[in-house]
């Protein structure tokens, strides 16, 4: 069976800066994978390369066996990759429900179908009751889940989450992890970009570590936590799992 | 034949310098405040009327009229920015547009009330004289306008480059947020900038009053002219405004010669469209951050 997502020798240069340096990895279907690294490691750039916000300078990205590198964001979305934005970007003058409906229009033209799909997506992330609220009434965790619901309504096979835990307090983050687990159980593959390691340990089955743009380790959470390069470069001495 | 072309090109260059100063006013305002002054043409016409009054009523030489127009419009611009425009700096473009249309209408209306709709020809002792430069005859009125414009452009450039406040203005144009953080007096900078921009328009208007009859309806034409010039040269670029001015001055002169004079602006607008499509930032403009 082809891998869901495959990065092969992907690099991205910004002028003199090599933000992503010859990164390769494969994601199988299902499960939650985390892409981690300290700030500046290149994870967000990598994320944007997969999502089609930027083209790679070198290398190729395949989704379900097909090349997607260099494709525009809207086409990548329609091929089955949904993404959230780190800085939450709701469409301000529409209700929560209407925001989520937009994604559904990538696979239907019918407003009623889009509405139903939006409700489903909101229920999946636990925002069902707030469907008709105005955006201004939402708390930060709610906005994060709104972003997730928006991406979900596009009916993705792979969901890319950009620092969805940032700014959340531990109980809020735990609630998000629970939502992600539920989604993963239903067959959705998730790629999380995070730098809060504790969350990553709980949520992810597979972890990829970037540092200075290059991949330095890959494996289960327990494996990478004891990996010497990771410990040295990222966690610092004295981290106890 | 060569003489004809020579005259046409010379005339184009001279007008180009005047267009340059009109454009400078507009581009400074955009470069620093990032707002498009759609009332610029009305301010040029204001200067035109000052020039008319100076020449026809009081016999004051054009240069003095230009300086007074500049001073008056500086004060007007400064005040306008402080009281009104600054509230609109973060508003959407279409709202800003209506604001300036409103300002332009008020200015034109005031001019109509004061002077009536009939064109007021300017009587300048220079109006019909020419001097010869080799085979080329230069229109003295145009030469005067261009020379004064050139002097003012140099003065403005020196101000921006060497004076403290000039440096503030350039800094604010470069990086507003950074400027705020290092303590630049942004409100004052904006007010000064708008004042300078308006003054440029006024000076230009007064300088060309020997060449144009003063009419309130010219405001739109001048605004459009300022746009074409600024965009071709590069919105927000000092040098661009000058290059744009010369380009448009020459383009118009050539077009008037080759095609019917009524079509001369078609070439300018065509050029504008091409620039907007292919390289919207013009020859010298910076990329939008």
């Amino acid at each position, binding site marked *: 069976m082809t891998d869901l997502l495959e990065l092969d020798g992907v690099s991205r240069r910004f002028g003199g800066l090599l933000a992503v340096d010859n990164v390769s990895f494969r994601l199988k279907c299902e499960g939650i994978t985390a892409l981690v690294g300290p700030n500046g490691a290149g994870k967000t750039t990598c994320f944007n390369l997969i*999502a089609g916000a930027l083209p790679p300078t070198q290398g190729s990205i395949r989704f379900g066996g097909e090349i997607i590198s260099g494709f525009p*964001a*809207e086409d990548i*979305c*329609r091929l089955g990759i*949904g993404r959230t*934005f780190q800085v939450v*970007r709701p*469409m*301000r*003058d*529409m209700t929560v429900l*209407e925001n989520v*409906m*937009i*994604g559904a*229009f*990538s*696979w*239907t033209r019918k*407003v009623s179908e*889009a509405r139903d799909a939006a409700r489903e997506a909101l229920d999946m992330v636990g925002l069902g009751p707030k469907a008709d609220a105005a955006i201004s009434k939402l708390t930060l965790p709610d906005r994060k889940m709104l972003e997730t619901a*928006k991406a979900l309504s*596009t009916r993705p096979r792979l969901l890319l989450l950009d620092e969805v835990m940032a700014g959340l307090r531990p109980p809020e983050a735990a609630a998000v992890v629970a939502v992600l687990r539920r989604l993963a159980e239903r067959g959705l593959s998730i790629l999380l970009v995070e730098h809060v390691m504790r969350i990553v340990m709980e949520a992810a089955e597979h972890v990829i570590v970037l540092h200075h743009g290059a991949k330095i380790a890959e494996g289960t959470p327990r494996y990478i936590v004891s990996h010497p390069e990771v410990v040295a470069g990222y966690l610092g001495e004295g981290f106890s799992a | 034949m060569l003489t004809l072309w020579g005259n046409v090109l010379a005339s184009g260059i001279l007008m180009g310098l005047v267009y340059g100063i009109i454009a400078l006013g507009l581009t400074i305002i955009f470069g620093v405040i990032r707002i498009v002054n759609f009332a610029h043409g009305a301010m040029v016409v204001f200067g035109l009327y000052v020039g008319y009054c100076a020449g026809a009523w009081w016999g004051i030489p054009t240069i003095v009229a230009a300086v007074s127009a500049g001073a008056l419009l500086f004060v007007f611009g400064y005040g306008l920015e402080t009281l*009104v425009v600054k*509230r609109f700096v*973060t*508003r*959407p*473009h*279409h709202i800003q*547009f*209506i*604001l300036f*249309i*409103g300002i*332009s*209408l*008020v*200015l*034109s*209306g005031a001019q109509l009330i004061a002077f*009536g709709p009939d064109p007021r020809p300017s009587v300048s002792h220079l109006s019909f004289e020419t001097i010869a430069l080799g085979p080329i005859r230069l229109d003295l009125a145009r030469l005067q306008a261009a020379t004064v414009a050139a002097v003012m452009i140099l003065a403005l450039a020196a101000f921006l480059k060497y004076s403290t406040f000039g440096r503030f203005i350039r800094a604010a144009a470069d990086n507003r947020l950074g400027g705020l953080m290092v303590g630049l007096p942004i409100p004052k900078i904006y007010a000064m900038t708008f004042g300078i921009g308006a003054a440029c328009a006024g000076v230009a208007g007064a300088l060309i009053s020997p060449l144009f009859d003063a009419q309130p309806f010219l405001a*739109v034409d001048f605004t*459009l002219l300022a*746009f*074409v010039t600024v965009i071709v040269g590069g919105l927000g670029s000092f040098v661009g405004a000058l290059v744009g001015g010369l380009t448009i001055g020459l383009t118009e002169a050539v077009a008037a010669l080759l*095609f*019917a004079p*009524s*079509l001369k*602006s*078609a070439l300018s*607008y065509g050029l*504008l*469209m091409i620039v*907007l*499509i292919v390289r*919207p930032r013009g020859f010298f403009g910076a990329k*939008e951050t």
Partner: protein
Amino acid sequence: MQKKRDALPDRGAVIGCLAGFAVLAMLGGVLNSHLISLLTIVFLFTFIGQSWSIMLGLGGQLSIGHALFVGIGAYSVAVLDIRYGLSPWFGLVVGMALAAIVGATLAWLSFRFEVRGIYFALLTIAAAEFARVVFSGWEFVGAMQGLFFPAHSGPNSFWMLRGDARFYYFVSLAAVLLGVSATALIRQSFLGYVWRAMRDDEDASRALGVRTFLHKILVVSFSGAWAAIGGGLLALVQGSVFPDSIMGMGISVDILVGPIVGGLGTAFGPLIGTLITLPLDHLASAIGNKFGIPGLNNVGYGLALIAVVWLLPDGIWPAIVNSAKSITRFSWFGNLRMEQVKK
């Protein structure tokens, strides 16, 4: 439960709307010819303003050169009718098609090269002015002298779209009604959602699968075609076309004042706005002339415009709606709520 709430405001709004139009229709029978003519122009500018309002209010694209499309429509009808005797209906269709093509081309050229925001607006001005100057020198369309429709005598003809002032009143009123319906329908369709998302945040909407490049072209071309119909009707009502009037900056500005004052992107905003601004302008002009002070209308109008954008940033209609909401605590008008267009 939800479905019921959706239906109720729609019904109330529709009834209120139809009642309003019925009143206007009745007025058509009784008012004197001066007011009839004025209102006809108001309606036509409203109709064109609706097209402009859709382009910005829904699609997020600002046009300050809409006269380009108005002129294309006007000249299509004029040339085909006056020179070739073809029915204005034909002219309207041709005008629509031409405007759609021109709009799509302009949009394609600029968005392809990433021209955005204020630069696109300036491009629309450039295109309109370019067209105006070209038409001023083009003999085939009458150049500066323009084209004149022969005076109409005899019965009103629907098929040839010729008639007296009252006839055009009803035609324009019908156009406005059509425009209001079309705006409401679009807003509720998938286009309405997708366009608004594109307007609010282009990158985010692309990440959600919206083909923004195509949609931007679509909204510009659709708006252009709509404006062209208005232009064709305007030509018939005015009885003549000149490049400086029908393709000039004056038209571009007059079109957009109504929707901004009334309320951008709403179904009724353009109507309310134009109903207020256009007669106000005429009134100010009349007062000015009566007292021998030309230009007073410009000053007054200019001050009024500044006041509106200063004090009522969303326009008059949403302000009315919001105060009505707080008074009556009903949300009948909820669907017609204004949306803020961000920079």
